[in-house]
């Protein structure tokens, strides 16, 4: 009875707020079906680590700390393992059909660099500003990897913002796309010349990309290497069961642990800070300017090309795959029910996946070089 009374008296308003946040994440996962595989474990974990029984005594803290130290903080095991699964899921064929689409993937990383400047202006030191800006990679594993490598103290808020905004892409992008394009631009039709790509090219692609990135941006090689390893498993044609395992069992297992481990960083004392709100705000800015950057480069390209590009596909260059491609496709159909942009936007979207990893590697290399003197 005494323990019961003590536990009740230990409940603070901060814990109640965190339960509310946890409940909101669970609601979004189940009712709105927004990234349920991540938001649900995160929501439950947010409640779990904010119980008044001071989880230290329950063993929960030990398990979560262990998961955090091996899965995220030490060797960044979870984001890298997850990338094998993501690589196995991605079909790069639309990109290989039209490699120029990669330009939009690069362009749509603008938000990262804009946010880096903005976060610096707001007073965040370079490692923290860079870690915050990488939320704009729209790529959870890359955000975790960069923030951990740079030793940011805002890892918890960054992880929560990165995964939450990925889930919110269908809400964030449409108004920005509409604001940046005219009705006539949104109605531009693009023909898809789906020429088949040889199996040799599909097999060599992940190897070639790994070698190029390894030479030009070595800090990104861990991420791109695991992503491309997963893709090679998919494309080689002789490891089908392993490819299936990577796409399903491996990715699902890692996702379960990743979600609950992220939540371990959501303790009220650390999470309920003004900085968390600012970081979440900066994450939104990053997503908005990613979308803006992709669209603007497409508009500039339209000034010089005979075959007009629907600038909306530039917005799919953020790496949130495949949500962003679907958003663009849906908006195209809203304006003209015969305008099928899916294959173009998927090509841009997968190139955004590669570009976001490169951006993460470049940020790491540049910040480390600056700090190293």
């Amino acid at each position, binding site marked *: 009875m005494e323990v019961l009374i003590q536990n009740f008296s230990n409940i603070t308003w901060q814990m109640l707020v965190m339960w509310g946040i946890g409940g909101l994440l669970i609601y979004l996962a189940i009712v709105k079906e927004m990234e349920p595989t991540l938001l649900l474990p995160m929501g439950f974990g947010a409640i779990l680590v904010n119980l008044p029984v001071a989880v230290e005594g329950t063993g929960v803290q030990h398990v979560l700390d262990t998961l955090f130290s091996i899965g995220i903080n030490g060797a960044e095991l979870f984001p890298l393992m997850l990338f094998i699964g993501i690589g196995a899921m991605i079909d790069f064929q639309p990109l*290989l059909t039209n*490699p*120029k689409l*990669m*330009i939009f*993937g*690069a362009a749509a*990383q*603008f938000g*990262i*660099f*804009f946010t*880096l*400047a903005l*976060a*610096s*202006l*707001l*007073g*965040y*030191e*370079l490692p923290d*500003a*860079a870690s915050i800006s990488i939320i704009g990679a729209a790529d959870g594993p890359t955000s975790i990897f960069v923030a951990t490598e740079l030793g940011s103290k805002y890892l918890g808020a960054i992880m929560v913002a990165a995964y939450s905004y990925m889930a919110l892409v269908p809400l964030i992008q449409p108004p920005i796309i509409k604001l940046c394009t005219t009705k006539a631009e949104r109605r531009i039709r693009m023909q898809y010349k789906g020429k088949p*790509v*040889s199996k*040799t*090219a599909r097999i*060599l*692609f992940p190897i*070639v*990309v790994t070698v*190029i*990135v390894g030479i*030009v*941006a070595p800090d990104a090689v861990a991420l791109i290497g695991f992503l491309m390893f997963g893709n090679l498993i998919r494309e080689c044609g002789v490891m089908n069961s392993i490819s299936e395992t990577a796409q399903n069992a491996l990715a699902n297992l890692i996702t379960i642990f990743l979600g609950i481990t992220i939540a371990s960083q959501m303790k009220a004392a650390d999470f309920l800070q003004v900085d968390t709100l600012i970081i979440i705000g900066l994450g939104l800015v990053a997503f908005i300017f990613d979308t803006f950057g992709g669209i603007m480069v497409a508009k500039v390209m339209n000034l010089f090309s005979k075959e007009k590009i629907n600038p909306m596909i530039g917005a799919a260059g953020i790496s949130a795959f495949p949500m962003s491609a679907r958003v663009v496709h849906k908006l195209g159909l809203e304006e003209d029910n015969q305008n099928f942009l899916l294959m173009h936007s998927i090509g841009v979207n997968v*190139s955004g996946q*590669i*570009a976001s990893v*490169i*951006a993460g590697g*470049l*940020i790491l290399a*540049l*910040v480390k070089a*600056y700090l190293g003197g």
Partner: protein
Amino acid sequence: MHVDLLLEALPIMGYGYLGIFIVTGAIIAVVSILKKLTSR
């Protein structure tokens, strides 16, 4: 407002964004060559 920190970040912003286009350009060039070689 921390203009000093902004000035510290601006070169990284510039080099970083430019760097992505350079790496991407290299990948586009190699993939285009790869496609030509393997389509024969």
